[in-house]
């Protein structure tokens, strides 16, 4: 091993400087996406509300809608009623999927 080799090896194996954090970690943490658990209650409440809204709509509106549709629509009233109620429930669910 020549002197140049030894010198080079010494340089290469010298420990590198420890860089002070100086707010680096905090900056990374600030840029993280919203915590998963923080999104969960929102999703739970939205789902529960959508289910409650669907049930309430079915209870309150099924008869009047069916009556109105049987009077004016050419399609069978039960099909349209189910479609209307399904739409009411699926809109909030679509919103959840979109925001996720």
């Amino acid at each position: 091993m020549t002197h140049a080799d030894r010198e080079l090896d010494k340089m290469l194996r010298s420990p590198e400087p420890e860089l002070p954090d100086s707010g680096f970690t905090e900056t990374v943490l600030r840029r993280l996406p919203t915590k998963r658990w923080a999104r969960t209650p929102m999703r739970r409440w939205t789902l529960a509300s959508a289910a409650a809204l669907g049930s309430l709509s079915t209870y309150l509106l099924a008869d009047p809608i069916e009556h109105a549709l049987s009077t004016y629509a050419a399609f069978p009233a039960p099909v349209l009623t189910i479609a209307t109620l399904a739409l009411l429930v699926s809109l909030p669910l679509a919103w959840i999927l979109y925001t996720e």
Partner: protein
Amino acid sequence: MAIDSDAALVARIVATDDRSAFELLVRRHQSPLRNFLRRLTKNDAALADDLAQETFLKAYRSMASFAGTAKFSTWLYRIAYNTFLNDQRTRFPHAELDESQHPSVTNEIESASTESDLERLLGLLPLRQRAVFDLHYKKGMTHQEIAQTLDVPLGTVKSDLARGHESLRKHVTTQKRFA
């Protein structure tokens, strides 16, 4: 008090999105990772820190895909290296990015002072050799780990080390002559 291993911290992040575990990982790896990126960017500290932040954010987002077959640091440096390469392609979209390409070194040799200028010496090496030297000598990685990190064959790592040594030895000898 027992120190949590990287693997244990990763498991906590994946299971419960544990931010304090992630914070520990960042604090543990920030200095060597930033040093690695500074070496790749030829000591552009601001750019290196931006890339280091990006690396940690990418690691966080894909933490669930960390298989645990390799060391966490190997996986992290791989993300960092790819982040650096992508950044270079974005900055210089028309430049051909050849990781094994030699930079122009003509006047650097004469002005490099021997002992204190390891950074300048390493800066004379082509990009991939610089990465190989850093990972081997400064991070203590094995040849196999370096091959995994840089996604190159094992033989390439060995030849990069051999060629890099030869190149650096010539520079050091030349400097001696000029001194």
